């Protein structure tokens, strides 16, 4: 394995745009092009263009592809209609989350699993192991795709200039093959920003041309290139979990308040079922800690790993993600807190910011919901 980070098909574009690059999960990725706050605001009010080519694509093919995914993941993917997508997770035998995933059903016997960059290798390994005995093939398609995302209220209008695909008929969490700017693309109405938007899976060789076409089409609508920094504040405001922060191997979907993705009613066994049944019961009867939103009263920023304390200074939880929220104008955090302090409005909750108890308001997630 090489020490130097991998670069995406758009690397030269990022450098030409003067992006500040960062190493992320083994990839060299754009952190920001100018001001991350301006990029964040562009996505909330106009549109942003992201390079997400670091995400890990895995194809699952064959007659029993759906059955394999039902066994390997916590969701019921065999019930997914062709052209639709689902948010799901892959868990270990003990119920711990190995990754959170988006799965697209491209055809009756063809699924596209999209893993986080940092987990793609182990998702690929787990799926391959779990495929034993199924009439299905697990194929590493990480090099087959570049992934561009257009996100924001103007995204549909920008994309409509470049495609004949029926965008109006494309629902949230659906994807269909089409062409964008003359390039073949899987056009998916998915994203990670809390806004309407699209993710475009294309051949790496077409990525630069597509980036240029989207940039030109979006110029009049205020579309700007956006980096990972604003992607994180956007998803945080939208209350979306991030692997390695809210989700870890030591967390089950029920601990993260995402038990709804686990489909116990599906036929047959699946990896982690027994442990997850116990986790579901525990979360319902005596939850240890609950994922909540915290809004800072002051301007110092709660960061991942900072303790959450009560009025006496006793530790009652831990921040998993925190950042200044451009939309709220104040710092916000996602945190696991003891169930006794998880009710919105609980008095006396503070975050220990480097030795000072900074008061925070407990709220239900998300911090931001777009107007539909």
């Amino acid at each position, binding site marked *: 394995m090489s020490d130097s980070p991998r670069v995406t098909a758009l690397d030269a574009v990022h450098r030409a745009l003067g992006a500040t690059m960062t190493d992320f999960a083994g990839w060299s990725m754009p*952190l920001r092009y100018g001001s991350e706050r301006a990029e964040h605001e562009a996505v909330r009010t106009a549109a942003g263009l992201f390079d997400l080519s670091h995400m890990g694509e895995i194809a699952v093919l064959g007659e029993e592809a759906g059955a394999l995914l039902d066994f390997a993941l916590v969701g019921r993917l065999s019930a997914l209609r062709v052209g639709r997508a689902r948010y799901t997770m892959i868990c270990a035998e003990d119920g711990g989350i190995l990754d959170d995933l988006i799965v697209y059903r491209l055809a009756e016997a063809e699924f596209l699993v999209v893993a986080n960059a940092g987990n793609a290798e182990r998702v690929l390994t787990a799926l391959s192991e779990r495929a034993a005995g199924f009439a299905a093939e697990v194929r590493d398609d990480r090099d087959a795709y570049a992934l561009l995302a257009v996100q924001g209220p103007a995204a549909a209008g920008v994309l409509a200039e470049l495609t004949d695909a029926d965008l109006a008929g494309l629902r949230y969490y659906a994807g269909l093959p089409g062409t964008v700017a003359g390039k073949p693309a899987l056009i998916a109405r998915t994203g990670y920003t809390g806004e309407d938007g699209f993710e475009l899976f294309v051949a790496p060789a077409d990525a630069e041309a597509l980036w240029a076409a989207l940039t030109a089409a979006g110029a009049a609508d205020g579309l700007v290139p956006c980096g990972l*920094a604003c992607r994180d504040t956007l998803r945080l405001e939208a209350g979306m979990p991030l692997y390695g922060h809210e989700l870890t191997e030591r967390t089950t979907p029920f601990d993260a308040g995402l038990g709804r993705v686990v489909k116990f009613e599906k036929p047959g066994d699946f990896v982690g079922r027994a442990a997850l049944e116990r986790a579901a019961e525990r979360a319902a009867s005596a939850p240890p800690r609950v994922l909540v939103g915290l809004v800072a009263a002051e301007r110092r920023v709660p960061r991942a790993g900072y303790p959450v304390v009560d009025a006496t200074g006793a530790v009652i939880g831990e921040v998993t993600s925190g*950042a*200044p929220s451009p939309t709220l104008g104040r710092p916000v955090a996602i945190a696991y807190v003891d169930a006794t302090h998880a009710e919105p409005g609980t008095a006396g909750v503070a975050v220990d910011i480097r030795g000072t108890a900074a008061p925070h308001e407990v709220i239900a997630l998300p911090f931001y919901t777009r107007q539909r």
Partner: protein
Amino acid sequence: MSNPQHLRYSKEHEWLSESADGVATVGITEFAATALGDVVYVQLPEVGDTVTAGDSCGELESTKSVSDLYAPVNGEITEVNQAVVDDPALVNSAPFEAGWLFRVRIDSASDAPAELMSADEYAAFTEQ
């Protein structure tokens, strides 16, 4: 990225402008401001505080991280920039002008720190 020739620079990316009365104005460089990203909060020392070269005397928070602010010289704080406390974005938009951070009366009894660099030396330092 240009570093004004009349300033001196620390390895911790502060700039320092000395006046005839022995009071220096201190800020962070454009290099540092760019590396931090959008600054959202600054905590400055208080007027009357005594600061020591190389020691932390405040904080700069950006979207993704928090960094210590270091004193480039020994001395006593004579003034802090309230405008930058109220609008931390000044650190990014005008790091060498409106985004200055504090003024310090240099303690002439102590040895002047040798680590301060010229603009050219600092430019070479940040290219390493």
